[in-house]
């Protein structure tokens, strides 16, 4: 890994170059990482390290496996020389164009640059044209809404842009920024493999353009594609890989990468947020919450990723924290899809589902491909018992991203609610396929098989086994397994699972009807097996509980004692409950 100092220098140059080309998002990202690099406290005034106070504490708290984090030795990091500018001093015309661009007058900017031949000018002209086309596309999407839904408006600039950029690439007079734009255009047009090649070319020549990396990431839809990319080793590649792993639902791999990156960028909010995202997928809510608390302390006006934080608060039922968060983002920027989503979550937690649907709708109006809003809206409709609308919302989510296991699960749930368990199975199967480590999904599927209509108990047992294998938090699976085996007359298996369930309840110190049931079953089972000592243990434990079971236990005990003292051949079947 390159030293902090080189990273810092590279990023500083890159930020200048990126903002010079009006690639604002990329330069913002680079600047965030720049400040994320740990400073030498001796050299800097406290004002400089102001942004770095909080993150270190998060790091300390969750930095548990330090030893594994040493970067793999032997990986040769290519140090790409910082690109030389072709125009040392920006021409006057370029300056004018840039001001137009900054005022979002894209066509004017492009027009001004029409006859300029410098690479930078060509890029800015093309980029301005592209953005002008995008803007017009957005407008047309509203204007062209047909009777059967919105038809796809297109960016009219794509064709001329593609033509120009491909000629430039052929002539070899294209810079990495031009390649990035070319890749973007190709991706929009559907030429995915060429787009990937071009983007790889771009990031290999100029690795600091995060925009190019994220376009490339959106084109890596499978691990095979990722492996086929021919990328130079640069520290930016690690950021890329981490984000691709996350997208491919390889959360643990992503976490390892991020932890590695933290050694250089220990104060990066971006990395913290990504770690939170990965932990959220692993359902480690406590940690996610504290990461977000720290993040907000450092960066109180952040809206990005805050919808996930609200999901965590929702899951933990923190009313006041959620309302506080909602208020804060509302004051920061109420017309961000994330803000609407947070407010929707808040209303949902308060049980005001109609209102929450209104806010999710607003989020979707702002971004109709906002996946989690569709899914959450589906949940709201389920709460409102409007299954048809819920199904519609979930289906939209699934069509946007067919890997969204929550939406598949929601679909299954909705159909199950309508009394169509067999039909629902299709959806549960999908969600389990996508997320085989989530016990809730297995349990939902098992319950479907168990319904009065289907009674496919063998299949249900298989599903519960699946749930039991993946750390079933609510401990439903064990109990159900025991019960089902008991129902099917396989007492030995039933006893096995009851015992396991009991052990678990003991370690987790939980009490309840399940405990009584397990004890009672085991007591009768062992008595029937003539293992009176074991039976007695369970019976005595049952005596601690009140209710009819206590009486049964007493009867059992008495029966056993009589059996042991008098003739053992007597049958005490009638004592069983």
């Amino acid at each position, binding site marked *: 890994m390159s030293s902090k100092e080189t990273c810092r220098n590279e990023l500083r140059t890159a930020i200048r170059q990126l903002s010079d080309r009006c690639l604002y998002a990329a330069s913002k990202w680079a600047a965030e990482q720049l400040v994320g690099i740990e400073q030498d406290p001796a050299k800097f005034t406290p004002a400089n390290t102001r942004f770095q106070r909080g993150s270190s504490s998060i790091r300390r708290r969750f930095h548990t496996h330090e030893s594994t984090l040493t970067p793999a030795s032997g990986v040769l990091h290519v140090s790409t020389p910082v690109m030389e500018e072709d125009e040392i001093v920006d021409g006057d015309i370029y300056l004018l164009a840039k001001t137009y661009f900054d005022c979002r007058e894209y066509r004017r900017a492009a027009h001004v640059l029409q006859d300029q031949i410098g690479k930078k000018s060509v890029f800015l002209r093309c980029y301005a044209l592209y953005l002008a086309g995008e803007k017009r596309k957005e*407008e*047309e999407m509203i*204007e*062209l*809404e*047909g*009777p*059967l*839904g*919105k*038809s*796809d*408006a*297109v*960016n*009219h600039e*794509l*064709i*001329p842009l593609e033509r120009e950029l491909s000629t430039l690439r052929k002539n070899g007079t294209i810079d990495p920024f031009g390649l990035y734009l070319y890749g973007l255009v190709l991706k*929009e*047009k*559907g*030429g995915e493999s060429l787009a990937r090649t071009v983007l790889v070319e771009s990031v290999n020549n100029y690795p600091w353009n995060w925009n190019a990396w994220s376009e490339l990431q959106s084109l890596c839809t499978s691990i095979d594609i990722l492996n086929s990319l021919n990328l130079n080793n640069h520290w930016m590649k690690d950021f890329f890989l981490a984000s691709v792993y996350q997208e491919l639902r390889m959360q643990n791999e992503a976490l390892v990468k991020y932890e590695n990156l933290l050694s250089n960028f220990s104060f990066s909010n971006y990395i913290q947020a990504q770690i939170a995202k990965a932990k959220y997928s692993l359902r480690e809510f406590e940690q996610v919450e504290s990461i977000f608390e720290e993040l907000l302390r450092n960066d109180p006006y952040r809206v990005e990723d805050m919808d996930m934080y609200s999901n965590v608060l929702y899951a933990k039922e923190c009313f006041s924290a959620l309302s506080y968060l909602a208020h804060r983002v509302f004051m920061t920027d109420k017309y961000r899809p994330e803000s609407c989503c947070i407010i929707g979550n808040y209303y949902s937690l308060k049980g005001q589902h109609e209102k929450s649907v209104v806010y999710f*709708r607003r989020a*979707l*109006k702002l971004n*109709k491909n906002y996946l989690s809003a*569709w899914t959450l*809206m589906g949940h709201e*409709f389920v709460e409102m018992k*409007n*299954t*048809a*609308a*819920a*199904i*519609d*919302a*979930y*289906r*939209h989510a699934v*069509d946007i991203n067919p890997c969204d296991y929550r939406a598949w699960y929601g*679909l299954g749930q909705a*159909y199950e609610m*309508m*009394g*169509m*368990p*067999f*039909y629902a199975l*299709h*959806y549960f199967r999908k969600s389990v396929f996508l997320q085989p480590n989530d016990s809730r999904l297995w349990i939902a599927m098992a319950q479907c098989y168990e319904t009065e*209509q*289907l*009674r496919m108990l063998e299949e249900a047992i298989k599903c519960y086994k699946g749930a039991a294998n993946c750390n079933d938090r609510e401990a439903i699976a064990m109990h159900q397994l025991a019960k089902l085996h008991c129902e099917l007359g396989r007492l030995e298996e039933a006893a096995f699972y009851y015992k396991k369930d009991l052990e678990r309840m003991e370690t987790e110190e939980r009490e309840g009807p399940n405990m009584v049931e397990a004890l009672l079953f085991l007591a009768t089972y062992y008595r029937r097996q003539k293992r009176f000592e074991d039976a007695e243990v369970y019976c005595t434990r049952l005596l601690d509980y009140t209710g009819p079971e206590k009486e049964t236990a007493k009867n059992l005990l008495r029966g056993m004692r009589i059996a042991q003292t008098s003739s053992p051949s007597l049958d005490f079947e009638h004592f069983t409950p």
Partner: protein
Amino acid sequence: MAGVLKPPGAFAVTPHKVSVCILLQIYAPAAHISVPFPFSSVAQHNRLGLFLLALTKACDDIFEPKLEELISQLREIGGLLHHWLTDHLTNKLSTLSSPDDLFNFFSDMRGILGGTDSGVVEDDQVILDPSSNLGMFLRRCVLAFNLLSFEGVCHLLTNLGIYCKEALSNCPPYEAQHLDDSSNDLEVLSQYENMDLENFVFEKVTEEIEARERASKRVPFHLHVPKALCGLVEDIEVLVDPKSKHGDKGREVCQYTHSTSDALRDIDPNGGMFLRTNWQIQGFLHEQANAIERHGGSYSFNAFELIMKQLQKYAPELHRVHYLRYLNSLYHDDYFAALENLHCYFDYSAGIEGFDYVPPSSGCNSLGRYEIALLCLGMMHFHYGYPKQALEVLTEAVHVSQQQSNDTCLAYTLAAICNLLSETGISSTTGILGSSLSPFTSIGISLSVQQQLFVLLRGSLKRAENLKLKRLVASSHLAMARFDLTHVQRPLLSFGPKASMKLRTSPINVCKELRLSSQLISEFCTETSAMTNEGDFSTAWLKNLHKPMGSQVLSEESGSGSFNVFQCCAQPSSIPGSVLQLVGSSYLVRATAWEIYGSSSLAKTNALVYATCFSDVSSTSDAALAYVKLIQHLAVFKGYKEAFAALKIAEEKFLTVSKSRILLLKLQLLHERALHRGHLKLAQQVCDELGVLASSVTGVDMELKTEASLRRARTLLAANQFSEAAAVSHSLFCMCYKFNLQVENATTLLLLAEIHKKSGNAVLGLPYALASLSFCQSFNLDLLKASATLTLAELWLSLGSSHAKRALALIHGAFPMILGHGGLELRARAHIVEAKCYLSDPNFSVSENSDVVLDPLTQASDELQVLEYHELAAEAFYLMAIVFDKLGRLDDREEAAASFKRHILALENFQDEEDPLVNML
């Protein structure tokens, strides 16, 4: 749709509609003349009117025609006027160059509408009635224009520019007049060149598709599928023309590949293409759905998928597209795609996506009709041969339908369950069907599957009658007839006073049910809504423009001429296709019934009726079935040569049908012939191929499975491997017994008798033959009974000459049936056995009654030679030679002996022979 509400106006002004408005203005100018200016006769005037009507109704495509297409159509109908019409149209279009021109144009349009309240109408005034079809169209256009925002008007203007430019760039005479700012004019032109090239390629593809289509005609996997679909579209009936592909499909397809493969190389896709009205698109989809269901796998998967994807892109909320894609993948055996699309369709539409408009608010509140989804899913599983899943799903459908009190869906679901139970062998349904379905399970009596099926059939029939679902009633009657055909009616309850009942199937009931189902043809009208025939009518009318004869006659000025042509080319049948299909299938059931009862001539007649009268409405698989029956008849009565000739024709006709019965028939014929010629290796090979055709799931493809093992047993028998043959037949009998296949039981028993006969254990064979006879009796299998009698006679005969009299009596008893309905083989066998009986009778003297023996023997040898049945032919000639020897006719004897030798040699050296049919495998 839950997310965003649709705007109420589902009608958009497009350049094509502007064109139609211009033509309407020509058709009905606000002037007081009976025949307005450019027209010289009333007929000509009316033709334009009809053309306009057709334009607004036709549903042959999803896109509106381009200007050049419209102009070429105008050429067809306009005759001498077409120059004037096109000039006027293009001029008028090119004058529309600013938003204000459009405003003025549409306010002029309002002028040609007659006022609703002006009571006085002068006689010869041409007035567009505001409530007529064309008037409504005009009003909708004007209204839609008035609702447009300024942006909308700007878009319309741009689109008009593209619309004209495209047409003009292809027509040199008209110079482009208003090519605005575009700096990429040249590029557009160059793209046109590209497009033409691709167009050419796609035209070829379309040609191929159409050729394949022509090669095949055929149906739904069962009768009520189209009906279920109708339920979804609120009972719209659109008649389907099998060649519904319009000439410009190639263009669409090509357009599509432009917009996806290299997405936007085309000029603005929104500028060039416009969807037709919602009504027309729904009509198109419905037509296509019917076509897919009828033609099954012969429909080109990819071409249609392309159109559907394109449509989906243009109208993302038109969810029926998913249904069509489901059907398409279903008939192309793409299980996963079918499943995905089905779920997708019902998730989005909730089973209530209706025809023209769904009130937007209702989408949110109503609960949806997901039971239809279950019904479809059940039928899908059934189609793919998963009866267990199908039954699960259908049971769920019953529950949900009952919960939602959707009686119609319940009736269809019950019918589907009946169909499932009757088509697949399920040995036990206990615990699968809910107790609410039959009254008997609730009182604790378990019924056999067949009894349950009977109860269900009765129940579903009654339900359908109550709900007045005529088509369902008809198909229930058909199902009932099929049930009665092979089942003996017994009292359902096994206690209480027993009515004396003959345990026989009742052909009378079958006839009654068939007759009842045919009554549909006079009753269907109550169920059909009138609205859709128009669309189909218009489509047919527009299509006929492209027929050469149309333009010839129509260019004449004579009015009557054009009307005649109009009527004869575009007469739509007044009977909906689904009704005809049902009536047709009753003929197929009739043919099958007669086949089982043993009247081959009546079976043939009914199959012929089907093939001639219903082939254009029937699905390809049903048509194939009729052909199969006819060819089988040929093989049995005329020998293999003719059968194979006919088979060749049928094969070409049904080239693309998947799971083809034709293939099965070919294998059957090849096997039969190989057995007769003694080519056992080939026979074995064919048998193996037959066995592979069947699905491996238990209970599915029972017909195929019994057929395969029956043939395996016969091959083993021919190879003299008696114990193996007996073992195979035995297991076959067990299977048939398990799944209650009684007719097959009779055949199997007869085969067992044959095996014992041939192995020389005549005594063991007798009980089998007798059992088979009694089966035949109770199921009225008259022809099979005759052949069982024949076998019985042979068995008796082989017990010794003392039984010859008894055998002869048996044969004579069966002769009327055998000679009347039997095929070549059966007749020949009967004749030989008769001769053998006479010859083995010690009291019989050859010299006195030589004709009694010789006549049947010559007849048998002739028939067997046609069949190339060497073994039996040799036997006949051998007997003949002996008789001739006894009679002292030495020349004849030598001749017969030579024939005997020839057949024996052929039997032994079949490899040497050149057999062209061997390659057919």
